[in-house]
């Protein structure tokens, strides 16, 4: 699903440049539940941005769903994001003046779906995250856990190939963290590829595979105990 070969990325800082990713090789197959672990500055957010087509890479190859990603202009990137990727962010990133239902339906709007149909589909996904009764509430009227569940519903609504979650539990307490992770596990069980970035060991342990990143290189890539037990 995601195949990365010898990926490099640098950011210019004044006259110098900061080499953030120094040759990453990573292969994530369809249906996997992978977490990228690393402290801040390890390059994990940069990796997510590149995988999420929010930023370009300098060197190396990136295949998304078998398609080589290169020379993307903004328009193409927008179309691919809409088609293949669903995002879940640490700070939820819901649009404050739209209701939960409208937030979930927004990616379908950019897909060009008519209003009636997209509200119907959005409602199905809200139901899936058990927030059907909150459909017409604004984000400000929801708790942190509820907001993140809305964001997950929004990430899923286009039926993407991969869900990218950037510190999905970073702003939540441990109880709600667990429920959000249960939700992600649930969608993974249904066959969705889920890609989580975190710096919390407990979160990473709930995934099937942990890739540890340090100073722009992968230092370990192992299957978790949980997964090993299941097998």
């Amino acid at each position, binding site marked *: 699903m995601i195949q990365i070969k010898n990926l490099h990325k640098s950011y210019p800082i004044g006259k110098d440049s900061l080499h953030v990713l120094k040759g990453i090789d990573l292969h994530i197959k369809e249906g996997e539940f992978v977490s990228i672990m690393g402290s801040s500055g390890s390059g994990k957010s940069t990796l997510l941005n590149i995988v999420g087509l929010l930023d370009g890479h300098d060197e190396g190859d990136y295949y998304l769903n078998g398609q080589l990603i290169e020379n993307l202009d903004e328009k193409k990137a*927008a179309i691919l994001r*809409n*088609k293949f990727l669903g995002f879940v962010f640490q700070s939820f990133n819901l649009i*404050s003046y739209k209701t939960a239902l409208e937030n979930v339906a927004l990616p379908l*709007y*950019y897909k060009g779906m008519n209003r009636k149909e997209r509200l119907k589909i959005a409602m199905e996904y809200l139901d899936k995250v058990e927030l059907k009764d909150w459909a017409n509430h604004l984000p400000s009227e929801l708790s942190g856990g509820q907001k993140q569940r809305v964001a997950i519903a929004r990430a899923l609504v286009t039926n993407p190939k991969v869900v990218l979650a950037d510190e999905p539990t970073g702003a939540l307490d441990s109880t709600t963290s667990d429920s959000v992770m249960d939700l992600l596990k649930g969608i993974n069980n249904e066959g969705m590829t889920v890609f989580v970035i975190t710096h919390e060991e407990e979160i990473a342990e709930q995934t099937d595979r942990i890739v540890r990143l340090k100073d722009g290189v992968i230092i370990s890539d192992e299957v978790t105990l949980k997964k090993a037990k299941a097998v």
Partner: protein
Amino acid sequence: MFDLDRWREIFQSINKNRLRSVMSGFTVAFAILLFTLLFGIVSGLSNSFKDAFTDDAMNTMRLRVWKTSKPYKGLQTGRRIQLKNEDLSFIKKTYEDEIQHFTARIYKNVNISYKNKQDNYSLRAVHPDHQFLEKTIIDEGRYINELDLKNKSKVLVIGRLVKEDVFGNKPALGKRVNVSGISYKVIGIFSDDGGDNEERIVYMPVTTAQMIYGNNDYLDQIIVGYDPKLSLDEAIAFGNKIERDMRKKLDIHPDDQSALSIRNMAEANKGVGLFMLALYFIVIFVGSGTLIAGIIGISNIMIFVIKERTKEFGIRKALGAQPSSIIGMVVQESVLITTIAGYAGLSLGTYILSTIGDGLEDYFIKDPNVSTGIVVGATIVLIVSGLIAGYVPAKRAARIKPIVALRAD
């Protein structure tokens, strides 16, 4: 291309940010309001000017003569020029095609008495066509006709105020009054839009006056009404031609301005036209200046709004919004605000103008208004303004990188 969803998005965003939408609309509304008021006032001024010239028919010219101030063809300076019947016939014959109406005038001051009342009035001895050239309105009876001319009838058409002075509320038509010792019959009563002085006049046939006052064929003034189809420039040229011919006929030096003059309404009209044109230019200049300030204001506020909504645009892009969709949204919002605000200003302006109506007539502003053409033009200008005001901020919004926007917590 009507995209209901796009409109829904825009209304939602405007509704969410009501204060700043109103604020940004305000500058444009104010600019259009100012423009409408200025334009209306100038049109009011223009109306007053037009009115000032509509006392008499617009397509007229008046030929008057005095004493010569230059020797010519062996004739001395100071010679008194006198218009006569033959001059009128000459003009009539020479310019038959161009002239619609013609009349002579003889001025006298007369004492009119009826029973025990008497007063002095201005008398004009005229031809029947004078009624059209002066736009005299007959209230009762009739005007002077050809038969009166032929018979040299002792008849009078008296002004409304003369009638009031002399007869009060009693009927005047058919009564006989005494003018300088001779008895005349009142055959008509008239009114005139030219003001009170024009209604303190009495008219009699030109032939009667010539017989009574000196028994000659003298005339004081010749007034002709030319074909209204002539353009202003053609009318001015026509006036110059008559002037040249008359100077030749009366042996007056071509440059002797004090011996003969033609007052051509076309020239006055042209002058007023140019003056109004200059005023309109000033209004357009001031108005567009204000509008540009309004556009810059909107553009500024939109840029600020884009900053405020950076994160929202970032989210939208992450979810698959293409740059063109972001540009379209911002521009459309800007056009919507500009158009609504502009129309609010325009409506308020036209409302104020219609309220003023004729209230400022004392200040030479009569019935100020804006024409349909101006309203249509303003609509186009507003939409274009909205496009311009929205484009720069929209470009900026489209350039927002989702990662930057999403990091901005």
